[in-house]
């Protein structure tokens, strides 16, 4: 086992980079046009799934026997809450990849995901609050599910603020990555909070172990809305990562070449 020195660390990183062809796309220069081609497809898919999901949610799914029409908030609340957690995990994954392999694009992907993740976290809290008022009689309660989701929002804000506070983007990526990876601990806490603690928030409506406790059309509508939000998140993050790439690589030759094609 050879000693790890900065020199041979760089060597094994390069060997790994050569080994996997998909590392080709870890270059911002090659990823920029690819992302540009993908954005419209994901945007169209998001719109189509949203139209289908909203149709199922409002016109096909029946009125709930206990909650009446108030339950229809589920078609955006649950997908937003799932996306808020999922985007965080993907963000931490890219941050971790950037920290390990020192690839520039990974850090940019993490930065591009954070605002969209924060937005979905806010939307989950907002729609949850508007659902809580008519069903629980309160806008907010400090139970484990709601509190851990609020902490998730602060983790996103912390990540964004920390990166904004550091001028050198590569150092900002590293500091952000450490914060993002530490915060991953909160994700299982949010997910299992309804089992671990006695919460006002209800348990999972959908789980891998048991059959869904929902009418089939309600479940289908909700899952189609999950797909819509998923496609939206990909489209928005790709749009943002393109902005970040242009901002960070503005002095490079390829951006100059790209700009000569603009107008």
């Amino acid at each position, binding site marked *: 086992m050879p000693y790890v020195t900065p020199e041979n660390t760089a060597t094994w990183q390069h060997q790994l980079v050569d080994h996997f062809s998909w590392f080709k796309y870890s270059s911002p220069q090659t990823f920029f046009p690819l992302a540009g081609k993908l954005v419209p497809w994901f945007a169209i898919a998001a719109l189509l799934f949203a139209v289908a999901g909203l149709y199922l949610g*409002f*016109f096909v*799914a*029946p*009125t709930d026997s206990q909650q*009446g*029409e*108030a339950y*229809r*908030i589920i078609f*955006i*609340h649950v997908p*937003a809450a799932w996306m808020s957690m999922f985007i965080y995990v993907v963000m931490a994954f890219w941050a971790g990849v950037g920290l390990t392999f020192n690839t520039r694009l990974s850090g940019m992907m993490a930065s591009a995901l954070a*605002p*969209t993740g924060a*937005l979905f976290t*806010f*939307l989950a809290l*907002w*729609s949850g609050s*508007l*659902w809580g*008022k*008519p069903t629980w009689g309160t806008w907010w309660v400090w139970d484990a599910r709601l509190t851990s989701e609020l902490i998730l929002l602060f983790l996103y804000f912390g990540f964004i603020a920390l990166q904004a506070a550091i001028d050198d983007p590569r150092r900002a990526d590293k500091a952000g990555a450490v914060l993002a990876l530490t915060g991953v601990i909160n994700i299982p806490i949010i997910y299992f909070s309804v089992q671990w603690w006695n919460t006002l928030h209800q348990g999972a409506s959908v789980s891998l172990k048991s059959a869904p406790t929902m009418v089939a059309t309600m479940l289908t509508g909700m899952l189609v809305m999950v797909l819509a939000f998923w496609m*939206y998140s990909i*489209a*928005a993050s790709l*749009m*943002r990562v*393109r*902005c970040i790439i*242009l*901002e960070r690589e*503005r002095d490079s030759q390829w*951006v*100059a070449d790209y*700009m000569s094609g*603009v*107008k």
Partner: protein
Amino acid sequence: MNWASWRDFFAMGGYALYVWGSYGVVIGLLAMEIVLLILRKRSILRELLRERSAARQALQ
């Protein structure tokens, strides 16, 4: 069909404030994010174009 009329649909069984309050904010903020991203891309392109023309003038 769940609704007898459009009025019935918008009333949401008396939960209009909560249901439309959620949907309105979700759709509004998601649309706003996309608009802000388009504006951000435009402002970067404009800035880079300005820098390029400034650099060319400096050369002349």
